[in-house]
């Protein structure tokens, strides 16, 4: 299992699949990862049941309902944290 997964990489992979099923290379390119790292994270996401492989569709990858929920959780949380746009206002 992975030492310390990067939540951003997980977020990028989940986001990449948000628009629909993709082939591995398409998702890898969209996430901007090298293939070794990509495969490591993909295995991890499949293990967590956030991403599923569709055997009937040339092995395309898709988000599971749990994966979609995880992506929403992450993007909502980040939007809440960064509502100050990185420049907190002084009173």
């Amino acid at each position: 299992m992975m030492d310390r997964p990067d939540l951003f990489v997980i977020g990028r992979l989940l986001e990449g699949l948000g628009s629909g099923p993709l082939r591995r290379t398409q998702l890898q390119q969209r996430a901007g990862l090298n293939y070794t790292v990509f495969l490591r994270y993909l295995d991890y996401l499949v293990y967590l049941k956030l991403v599923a492989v569709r055997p009937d569709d040339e092995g395309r990858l898709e988000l599971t309902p749990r994966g979609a929920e995880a992506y929403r959780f992450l993007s909502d949380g980040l939007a809440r944290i960064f509502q100050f746009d990185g420049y907190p206002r002084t009173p």
Partner: protein
Amino acid sequence: MESESRLSGLLERLRSESRRSRRISWYAWGFLFAAIAGVTASEIVEVAALARCFCGSSTSFPEWLAVPIGLIPAAGLLAFTVREIWLGRREARGTPASTRTTPGEPPGPTPHWAEAVRESQEIMTRLQSETEFSFVPLILGGLGLSATLVGVLVQLSGWDTRYPVYFVELLALPGMLLLVPLYLGARTWWRTLQTQLSRQVSELGRLEGEFFARFAGIDAPA
């Protein structure tokens, strides 16, 4: 992810604040030492002038000129400190106008989430301890600076022949009070900014923990 660049932005901002805090610290301590050196130099000039009087020498360097010259470095460093605080305050209000950041600067490599949060937490801890140490020399240096300036003004006006020295030096206190609004304002702003940044950093750490707890079934990544 859009927020990915925002975390990079937050980290860059924290690094920038860290550099600013360090500059303020250097300027503030420099100001204190320059004020001490300036006051010492003016005292030396005074003693030298007295010695020349006893020796009957006709050439002397006027103290009213020596003191301002001696205090120029201190005044300059104080101006730099105020400028840094003012620039920081302006940026905190949403105007990224620092001359030290290039607008078209390419973004750095995307940080690892946990590493970014850890670095941010370290920066915040350092910032909080630096803040207190930066403002003490400002007040002490300001006291020395205003005491010397008041002393010169009093000598020029001839008051020193009528009133005791300790009374003359007490007049320096109102001069120091001019620095109190600067101190309070800067300290309040600095702490507010740090509190807000600190909250963002701790929420990022908490979000990571909650995500892994909920979707990976672990309390925190190893």
